[in-house]
């Protein structure tokens, strides 16, 4: 039996030190992913949890046209924030379409960014071939039951999906992550925070060991922009997205003057559809443009038989959300 230590950090400094001094120690926030992985599934093996749940990293502040969200703010708290409701409505929609009320009351924003994939091959220790757990061991999912898996940023080493809803509008809005360790603070754009699997599917982001996500900064929608988040799934609630899209658009005289598009349910990382945005800006807000944007967004997908349907579904999801926010 492997014992896992637990210590509650008294303050930020000791939290950083307690993780930094032990290469196998991890931060524990809401616990909605980490405890499953370590205790139930036993696919990660931390030496100890450093509980940061009581650190004063909670709350939402507004600084001009930016929102600064402390990492321990819960999903429900962020969804209830008046500025989010008025100026980032698609962030609120994405939050409330995620998980369940019970989980949203526990899960933190920092934890949401760092959630691990739901791939059942990753989460079952009886499966030997998982490059994400053990680089070089192979990928059983590619030849297996793949449905809730990625088609963008995926490759023969790994097709595990980043399943966050929240991150879809966040990458679309150029959110930034504030990171802290003993050396100080750095700020990383969320679009550069994640790493596609490549030859190291086990390395999912640029976070260093012992580095703590303290805040997420989100620019507010510009005046006149409209946004929306669409989540497509078989079960009406409490299911991860089969595909999703978050769009924010400004239309002037029938022409799109500003556009942001993020995709969920399709990427190994929260997916920013840059190419689609290029198609949209300057084009008329019509079906033809939307379809062209969708085609541009889903270019060169990596599919397996179980995920092939997502190519067309993702495109239709994009068209639908663009139609919705421009109508």
């Amino acid at each position, binding site marked *: *039996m*492997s014992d896992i230590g637990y210590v509650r950090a008294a303050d930020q400094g000791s939290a950083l030190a307690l993780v930094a001094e032990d290469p196998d120690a991890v931060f524990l926030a809401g616990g909605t992913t980490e405890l499953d992985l370590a205790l139930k599934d036993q696919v990660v093996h931390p030496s100890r949890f450093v509980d940061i749940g009581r650190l004063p990293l909670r709350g939402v502040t507004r600084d001009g046209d930016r929102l600064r969200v402390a990492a321990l703010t819960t999903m429900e708290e962020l969804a209830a924030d008046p500025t989010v409701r008025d100026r980032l409505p698609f962030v609120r929609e994405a939050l409330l379409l995620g998980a369940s009320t019970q989980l949203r009351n526990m899960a933190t924003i920092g934890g949401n960014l760092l959630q691990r994939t*739901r791939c*059942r*091959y990753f989460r*079952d220790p*009886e*499966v030997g071939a998982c490059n994400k757990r053990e680089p070089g061991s192979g990928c*059983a999912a590619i*030849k*297996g*039951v793949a*449905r*809730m898996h990625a088609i963008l940023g995926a490759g023969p080493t790994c097709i595990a999906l980043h399943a966050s809803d929240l991150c879809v509008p966040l990458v679309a809005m150029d959110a930034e992550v504030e990171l802290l360790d003993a050396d100080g603070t750095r700020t990383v754009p969320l679009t550069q925070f994640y790493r596609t699997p490549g030859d190291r599917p086990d390395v999912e982001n640029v976070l260093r060991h012992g580095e703590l996500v303290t805040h997420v900064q989100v620019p507010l929608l510009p005046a006149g922009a409209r946004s929306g988040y669409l989540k*497509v*799934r*078989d*079960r*009406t*609630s*409490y*299911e991860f997205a*089969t595909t999703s899209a978050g769009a924010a658009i400004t239309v002037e005289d029938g022409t799109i003057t500003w556009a942001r598009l993020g995709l969920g349910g399709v990427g190994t990382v929260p997916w920013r559809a840059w190419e689609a945005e290029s198609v949209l800006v300057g084009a008329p807000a019509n079906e033809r443009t939307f379809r062209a944007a969708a085609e541009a967004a889903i270019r060169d997908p990596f599919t397996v038989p179980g995920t092939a*349907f997502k190519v*067309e*579904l993702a495109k*239709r*999801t994009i*068209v*639908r959300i663009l139609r919705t926010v421009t109508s």
Partner: protein
Amino acid sequence: MTATLAKENVIGRPIDRIDGRRKVAGAAPYPSDFDLPGQVHAALISSTVAAGRITRIDRSRAEAAPGVLTVLTHDNAPALVDPPQNALGSTMRRPLRDDRILHYGQHIGIVVANTRAEALAAAKLVEIEYAEEDPVLDLDDPRAAVEDNPFGMASSRGDVPAALAAADVTVDGTYTIGAEANSPMGLFTTVASWQGGRLVVHDTTQAPSFLRIALSVMFEVPEENVRVLIPFLGGGFGAGLRLWSHTVLTTLAARVLDRPVKLVLSRPQMFHSVGHRAASRQRVQLGADRDGRLTALDHDAIAANGMGDNLPSPIVAVTPATYACANVATHERRAHLNIPYTGFMRAPGAVEAHFAIESALDELADQTGVDPVELRLRNYAEVHPESGKPWSSKALRECLEVGAQRFGWAGRDPAPRSTHDGDQLVGQGMAGASFEFYALPCTVRLAVDRRGNATVRTAGTDIGTGTYTITAQITAELLGIDVENVRVVIGDTDQPPAPQSGGSGLAGALAAAIQNAAGELAEQLARLDGRPGESFASLLDRHGLDELAVTGYSDLAGAATHSDVAPAGAFAAAYAEVGVDEELGVVRVRRLVSVIDGGRVFNAKTARSQAIGGAVMGIGMALLEELAYDPNSGRVANGTFGDYLVPVNLDVPDLDITFVGEPDTFNPTGGKGLGEIGIVSIAPAIANAVHHATGRRIRDLPITLDKML
């Protein structure tokens, strides 16, 4: 309170469950709630390949691990006797029989330690090597061994090929249904304890009397020395109808250690340890005249079965009795695969058959232009189509008509794709359902005491359907006492033997046995010279008796063989309205009307709960649920509640549930079982509604969004 006059209108009343307060207060003991003095904890060792042989087992690291008391595998465990076939036709390949691996997750050993955590940790330390073989996992795999008509369920009347050839209109469709997991909330548990030569087992079973027999044979102890206790079960939906290897292994470990041993399955283990609805493929061919009158019905079904297993999959059993048709043929096959053992799941066979037949009838309605409801009425079986005898009760016509009225079917535009609502195409579909009569013998002990209380005892259990409550209601009415004065002792094989809670057979058999006992009691009371209006208390007092106890018995199936009516099961009709977002493929049920003929309803509230549960499960079957096996390893690839999707509240619209019909004329209490009928017509009604919405006929369940793109 009289000894001779029955109390009226207790049966049928929607009273609260008499065990409800205990359940919501957490005071009802489910199997996992039992802890015995000196008890230790078990964990299972499961195969990580789907086919082959075990070539090496090294238990040494596990045996040396903290707290470990024993590790049992096939090469060191005491031999057991093979279990007998039970009344459901189910047998089992006994665990630890040899080195063969027949499916992924097969229980190949058990570890017992002082704590559950120690047992789980040690189970991972057992080193096992396999000579792995390529598993056969798919119904279509040509390597699969296929048996033809293994249970003699194939049947034939008339001349189907000639009738098909001569038909004005024909339909020929192939329908597939994915494997489904029963998914009860309660984790299956065994707590086994040997007390001298006597075995006491708390076990999650729907069939305590069968389990007692099986354990008595396997462990070579007299039946009377085995006691199975299951007062509260925690849901089964058929999963508790078979003998499972975890029960046997826990009992074995308890005997080896001579200590009480407890095992609670994990949720992932539930997906491969307690059965599932087998994947199936059916072909239905219909022949009809231009008015939609059936002239031929050919029904061929193949279902998956575990390797080396022997479970009946009665898909075609109900077919000959569904509709009036002179020429009917059924064919049954099963394919043996390296999958976890299949089991029974709510309305086994009947629900699969109805998806195929009721979908095919919808196709026939489409071809002939006859309204789907009218089509079913034109082919209504006024008498039992096989025996020609009148039904003991049948209100399917009322189900169809009342359902149509409540749903507003008359206003429906028959053309597919005729109704839009925003982004959705709206469709309406319906289906009928016929359920087979089924019963096994049942015995009860009924006693009245000097305080005017009655006690009913039987081994059968309550799987959450309301057996406690209807037992009390029936007894109260027949004895003329209040429900509060009836004590119900069930789920204990030290009580008289009863059938399983399954096949919608327990309520009818139990009610008939109670009635038989009440009659016996009345005779005894008459012999005691009871005065009109005299209470039990007074009568017993006068004779110096503490209590009066009688035995009641029913054998409805036996009586059926010489009955001049055809005993009927329940009937139903379902009407569904769906919205299909065609661009995104998403199907949602907007409205659902379910009308059920369950004969005399024993409790309107618990009956309604059964109908609701069946409808919800039917929505899952239609739109969400499918067990996925990894095509390489045979491992269940979605064995969690995050990955195997059952309906949530938002998937279920307001349900309109109605009961129709008259008391059944064959069952002396007028009741018919209704635990399963509620699911039978739901999936075809939804699939037919999807066709009406979109013009697309999906013959493959579940109808997930990828199939709609």
